[in-house]
């Protein structure tokens, strides 16, 4: 008799438990799973039957293993189909894949989290984890930049985190009208607010590549060690196990060696157009 082995190419079918509209074009899909374990920063391949498959970061609390969430922006054919799913619909999931945020390595240090746009989604499990084990870390600061106030994700969580006395949350938007009373400017303009001790700080950055490049520059100017800066990359991942080469990034495969990379390792690659 054949042994029932895990095959990373075959999706497991799950049911959608809930769909939450985060913004006008971004949705969070809660999927009912049973004992699904993952680490903050990992992603799944989500398969909409008959349509296609896309890599999406897991955005829920890693402590909850019976429901996992994925926050999806409607940008293409498959993501639109994902955003159209309803409670009770079936979805295929392969995963979890990829290299997570170094949650153990950064214990005992100050934590600086910098997110741009949808980049807050892969960082949310990390934030949940750090807040669950808050005493293991020094200061915790979150800088978040969105395009406009309407693009801000996870409003409720941000408000909850902001209300805590042990986390500093700063939010900025690129564009606003006079009804907005918060910061206006790119996320790098918030870096001067950071109080963390640069020599004992781990920085976790996720957002569009160009944003991560400029944030990393700012972090280096603040004297945060390059080896303590981690970024999460995005590429066109297909197999998710480092075989097909779709997500090749210089000598790395984003699906297998990433998506979380040490900045040291990818710094030079980020400014090469061909990569």
């Amino acid at each position, binding site marked *: 008799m054949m042994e029932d082995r895990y095959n990373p190419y075959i999706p497991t079918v799950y049911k959608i438990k809930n769909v939450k509209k985060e913004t006008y074009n971004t949705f969070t899909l809660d999927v009912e799973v049973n004992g699904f374990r993952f680490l903050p920063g990992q992603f799944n391949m989500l398969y909409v039957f008959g349509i296609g498959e896309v890599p999406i970061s897991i955005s829920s609390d890693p402590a909850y293993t019976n429901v996992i969430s994925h926050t999806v922006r409607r940008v293409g054919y498959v993501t639109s189909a994902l955003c159209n799913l309803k409670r009770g619909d079936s979805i295929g999931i392969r995963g979890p894949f990829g290299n997570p945020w170094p949650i153990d390595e950064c214990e005992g240090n100050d934590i600086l989290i910098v997110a741009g746009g949808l980049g807050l989604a892969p960082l949310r499990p990390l934030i949940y984890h750090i807040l669950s084990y808050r005493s293991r870390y020094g200061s915790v600061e979150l800088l978040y930049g969105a*395009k406009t106030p309407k693009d801000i994700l996870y409003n409720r969580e941000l408000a909850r985190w902001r209300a805590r006395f042990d986390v500093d949350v700063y939010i900025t938007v690129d564009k606003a009208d006079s009804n*907005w009373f918060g910061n206006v400017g790119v996320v790098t303009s918030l870096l001067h607010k950071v109080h963390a001790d640069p020599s004992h700080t781990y920085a976790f950055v996720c957002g569009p590549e160009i944003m991560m490049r400029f944030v990393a520059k700012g972090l280096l100017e603040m004297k945060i060690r390059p080896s303590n800066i981690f970024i999460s990359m995005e590429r066109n991942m297909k197999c998710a196990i480092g075989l097909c080469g779709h997500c090749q990034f210089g000598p790395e495969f984003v699906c297998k060696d990433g998506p979380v990379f040490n900045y040291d390792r990818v710094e030079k690659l980020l400014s090469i157009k061909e990569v």
Partner: protein
Amino acid sequence: MSVEDSIRRHRFFRDISDEYVRSIAAHAKEDTFNKDEFIFREGEDADSLYLITYGKVSLELSTAHRGRVIIQTIDEDDVLGVSWVSPPYRWQFDARALMLTRAIRIDAYNLRRLCDEDNALGYRLMKRLIDVVIKRMQAVRLQLLEIEEM
């Protein structure tokens, strides 16, 4: 806290000698702005350098189709207003307090005079101001790229 102490504590004047701070403080005063109060309006004389000590200020433009557009916000420990440095000394934008805001207002005419009279002071202040301008210009370039969306 005296105006002189407030200037000394502000990031823009950090490490500037006491003697210079004293001479600048002679032309400075504290100002408080209520929420939604305009600190200056586009086209008015750019007659001051503001050191924000508390609160938040928006730099805005009024546009025909989009109403008031906030270009950037400036807050505590930052400087407001660079148009006083170069002729014709007119504000290019509106500055509005987004919350109760306190600032040190330094008279621009006298600050320019002090810089002209003592080039060492002038050079140090201009270097700092250039740093502010460069950072804001870079930020605006990134804003134009809409980096949060790419």
